[in-house]
């Protein structure tokens, strides 16, 4: 049996003082699952539900500060978010189920792990189990030749093709959020683009956090005046499924031309996938179908399908085109 120590941290300082090998537990909707599957075997759980990180506040610069413990539901229905960052609200509401969103937190969502079926097999990465370089570096990747319909086409390596599953993060990538953390070495600010890592040769290293470092806030910049933002998620069934392809767009059109564009994709990348290529293809161009298709082509230019997920390339393009159309309508 996997035994672990459970403590409830009353303050950020107390939380940071936790022993190594311990993990923070927020909503628990990812972590408890993974513990049951023997994927995560923390020696301790530090419950951070009492920490005063459950507020959404306006920043002096006009941006928004989201506490790491703000529940996905609360964030999605926050009036400020709905008004100024619609893409974030839509992304959150497209994810999981109401029950899960009521538990899931901003920090936990940032750090949710891939849904690759091999990664989630209890014995993956052990001798006789499926190869999984995320679980045990060097053990191989069973998904390459296996059930990989859900897997990534962007940012993959020959070690790992696992998709980053979050919807929320795709919106945050397009919104150019920044992440505030506090760790044993103090506070720091991490740009969203630098937070999640592509697998490369080290797929087990998924993000920029140091051991024991706590996400305290996610900051959103001041809303871009006159911009519209949209999230679109495509999947097999109407609800309760991770994205096959999704897209977050923040765009501003003036005089028929695109003056501001931020494009990010979900369901197709090994991390929340910001596409500077698509943005470059949009800037200053006429907001029409041809431009959108060019942008979509640019976004998927480097896509590398593996077996069953080849369809995602075209699906993601269509997703980008449609989202751009909606955001510029």
């Amino acid at each position: 049996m996997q035994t672990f120590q459970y403590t409830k941290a009353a303050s950020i300082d107390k939380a940071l003082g936790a022993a190594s090998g311990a993990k923070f537990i927020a909503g628990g909707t990812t972590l408890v699952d993974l513990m049951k599957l023997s994927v995560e075997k923390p020696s301790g759980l530090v419950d951070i539900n009492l920490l005063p990180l459950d507020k959404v506040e306006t920043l002096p610069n006009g941006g928004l500060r989201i506490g790491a413990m703000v529940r996905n539901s609360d964030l999605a229905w926050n009036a400020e978010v709905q008004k100024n960052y619609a893409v974030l609200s839509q992304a959150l509401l497209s994810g999981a189920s109401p029950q899960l969103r009521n538990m899931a937190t901003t920090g936990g969502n940032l750090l949710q792990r891939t849904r690759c079926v091999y990664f989630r097999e209890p014995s993956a990465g052990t001798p006789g189990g499926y190869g999984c370089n995320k679980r045990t570096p060097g053990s191989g990747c069973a998904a390459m030749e296996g059930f990989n319909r859900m897997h990534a086409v962007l940012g993959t390596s020959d070690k790992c093709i696992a998709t980053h599953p979050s919807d929320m993060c795709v919106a945050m990538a397009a919104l150019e959020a920044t992440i505030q953390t506090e760790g044993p070495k103090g506070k720091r600010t991490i740009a969203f683009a630098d937070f999640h890592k592509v697998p490369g040769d080290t797929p087990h290293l998924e993000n920029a956090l140091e051991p024991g470092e706590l996400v305290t806030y996610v900051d959103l910049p001041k809303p871009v005046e006159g911009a519209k933002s949209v999230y679109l998620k495509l999947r097999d069934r109407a609800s309760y499924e991770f994205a096959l392809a999704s897209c977050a767009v923040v765009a501003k059109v003036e005089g028929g031309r695109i003056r501001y564009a931020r494009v990010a994709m979900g369901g197709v990348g090994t991390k929340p996938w910001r596409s500077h290529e698509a943005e470059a293809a949009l800037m200053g161009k006429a907001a029409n179908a041809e431009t959108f298709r060019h942008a979509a082509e640019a976004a998927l230019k480097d896509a590398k399908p593996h077996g069953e997920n080849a369809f995602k390339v075209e699906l993601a393009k269509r997703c980008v085109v449609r989202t751009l159309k909606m955001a510029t309508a």
Partner: protein
Amino acid sequence: MSTSPDSIIGRATPRIDGPLKTTGAAEYAADFHFEGMAHAVTVGATIASGRITKLDTATAESMPGVLLVLHHGNIGPLYRTVPGDDSATNSEVRSPFEDEVVRHWGQHVAVVVAETLEQATAAAAAVKVEYALEAANVRLKLDDFKGERKTISDRGDVDQAFDDAPVKVDQTYVTPVETHNPIEMHASVVRWDGDRVTLYETSQGVMNHRAVMAQVLGLPLENVRVVTRFLGSGFGGKLFPWPHAAMAAVAARKLNRPVKLSMTRRMMFSNVGYRPRTEQHIQLGATKEGKLLALRHEYLNNTSMLDDFDEGCGEATPYLYSVANLEVTGAQPRRNMGAPMWMRGPGAVPGLYALESGMNELADALDMDPLQLRLKNDAEKDESHDNIPFSSRHLRECLETGAKKFGWERRNAAIGSMRKDGKILGWGMAAASWVAVRLPCTATVEFCANGRLCVRCGTQDIGTGTYTIFAQVLHEKTGVPLDRIDVILGDSSLPSGPMSGGSMVTGSVLNAIADGANNAIKRLQQLAAATEGTPLHGAKLETVAFTEGRLHLKDQEASSGAHFADILGAAKLSRISAEGKTVPTWEDPKSKGFSLHSYGAQFVEVEWEPEIAKLRVSRVVTVIDAGKIINPAAAANQVAGAVVMGVGMGMLEETRYEQRTGQPINGNLADYLVATCADTPDIDVTFLDYPDPIMGEYGARGVGEIGLAGVAAAITAAVHHATGVRVRELPVRIEHLLESKIVSV
């Protein structure tokens, strides 16, 4: 018999067991807890083919709380059931741990019993198993099958007729493995009392379950009792016992303690059945006017290495349409996969997907309305059985009523031509059918001195509303209000009742209950006439009437007589009861010589957004001819639920077997997609409600399965109509839709 318009038979009646379920008071198998109960967790094979060379239980046995580890070496004697014994049908031929051969991934190789579930789970993970691996055959496709095919039905000369036919369809249709996913997991809670055993089971057939367990455990039948008070649905997966029940029973006997063994969702995908993959070759030949000339239906379904499971895809094919030349054959290639099991509408559901898809393609080849094609070929007699008449067939009316409700005449047959709210609409339709049989059974009806009325039958309510319709029948017969009627089911110690399978409970048991009620009333009347101190004492039997629970003289008001409770009181009896029986259709001279089936029509609309390859089933009109409908609310719930399952079959469900290990790799409800509430289309269910005179009292045929038949074929036709893409291998996926030439509205 016919029922009056204000009868409770045919009236939408709320579930009498509803409050028990909504308050959590209903006890499902895994809810049973007993003093000193231990918990069992099984260890599954991680290979699909080979032999166990070493099973090391030492670590597991030394772990905290562990009481016992059972495996091939120590399970002791277990027996197979007698081949061909219909009263004791098992799911798997092999009894658990019978040998050290592994024939499918997940096969139980050991079971660990401990004080707590957590301890058992941890110890199960610590059992070390080594295998001598053998080549496994988990190949998805069955088209390499070279063996013999069994002829299921055959008339005329199909080869010649097909060759000569001016218009043809010659296609293969594939349905994937689908896994039963009732929300309630399979579970066994076993308690011994000396050499008697009680099993609290998730069973769709307590009588059969008892008979199997008696044979498997080597016990006299009367020493075994099986209880299933409530079932969180089964879809066929819980018809017959699975090996875990015997494993739990042996563990409980060895430990002399109650034992609970519950499946996990993951095990649901490997150890308790699934609808096998089918590959069905359909050949249809017709005249230019659309008259069928030839129909060939050759199906394959996979089975396991030891079990001979025939999905029976040709069930509906031989009688659905009028065609002079027909052949249906079937065969079952073996795979290193678990034993398949009937799933809602077995045979007919995948079979009709293929046949009705073929008919839709034929209509397109003929440039004919698919509705007209069906009407034109409607069968008047059962041509597969010497042209015997149908007991009650209204397929034509189903089709015509459905077409009208759906608005079929507004259909523009051109692909991608219909629009609504910026989306393309696709329309498709299919016919449906399902067998009807009345099974033998017994029920007892009992009038009690406390004024309550009770019916007992060894059948079970699998969530479909069986409790309620039994109460409806008693109310109709006696006038006793529903809240004074007790329906006792789900216990093998009750009078023998049928399995909840094949949509046969309603048609079977209602006869026995009605018969039992009539007999019990007769006995009450006799008692009243014979009992001093009642207003009826000394009356001639034929002058005694029974109205609304009261016995009185026929020519007087009911109020003049006495309530049955008072008569029992006067006679100093606690109760009076009588037995009722149902004669099975195959023994009833009245039903011999008739072809008994239910019919239906499915009309489906899909909405298609080509720009984003998004397709959703938006509207379904279903018309069902299933005889008399006893409780329209429960029946509509069954059919609507089946339609939703049809959306899953058409668009979502597929169990994927990892080719390197044979593991059902998407064995969880995140990766195995079933329809969610948000996928539920607008569903319009209509019952024709014609009593079937051959089915006996009330003329009901049962509605649990037919609603699923035809849905997938209607969906794929609608998909074709919207997108131009013909999907012949379910489910329809975005991958298929991206092939559409239509890329914008």
